[in-house]
């Protein structure tokens, strides 16, 4: 109810929101496969690789926070914690695992 009133006073532009989500998901899928390359060539196995991925996405979120949203993520995302810091982390995981296993097989095996 409180949020509904807040949205009535300060309406949100749907196209901008869509654009921002698109930008974040593009960056996530590109960097996820990149981290997969690194994890595979470093020969990471099991939990180490997943922890590496989480650290990598945190760093990329930091880049987004400082360079793209100028330190004010609430101006560009409705829920900064979920949309900027946690946005598309799980969907990038599959492309991470794909390149991880590929490069592990190419370089190590």
């Amino acid at each position, binding site marked *: 109810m409180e949020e509904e009133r807040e949205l009535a006073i300060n309406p949100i*532009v749907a196209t*901008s929101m869509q*654009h921002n989500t698109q930008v974040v998901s*593009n960056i996530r899928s590109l960097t996820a496969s990149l981290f997969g390359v*690194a994890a595979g*060539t470093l020969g990471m196995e099991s939990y180490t690789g997943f922890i590496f991925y989480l650290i990598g996405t945190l760093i990329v979120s930091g*880049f*987004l926070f400082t360079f793209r949203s100028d330190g004010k993520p609430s101006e*560009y995302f409705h829920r900064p914690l979920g949309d900027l810091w946690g946005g598309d982390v799980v969907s990038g995981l599959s492309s991470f695992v794909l390149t991880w296993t590929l490069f592990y097989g190419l370089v190590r095996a």
Partner: protein
Amino acid sequence: MTLIGATLNTVGLLFLTHAVYSTHEHTATFPHAPLPLDITIELLVSILVLSAGIVFTSPSLKPIVWARWAGRLSREGRHGEGKWTREGEEILSEGDPYAFLGLDGGIGGKREGRLGFWDVRGKRKEYAEWAKNGGKQ
């Protein structure tokens, strides 16, 4: 901004390719030795540089609060963003969706202004004067 991003991407890709190739050579010659520290560092640095480049080359975000978004539109107007269609027409940024209302005309402006604000009394006075003058301008 795009120039910085492009250089970061190029440098990162070069270092990444070199690091992966070095790892491949190293594991091919010494299959069970651990990876040397310099290759690891090169790989991690190249990954960092590349992800920074990807963030820099991505299109900039748009403000979601309507007031800020509309304020930016009215301040900057429609302008080109350095992109062209295949036919050679420049692609413009998004414009004010309510421009068709003619708000800029207004009461002091040249045009009628917003249709909802049609000045009925003014129009009636104009008509009365026109009729008093015998229907001539």
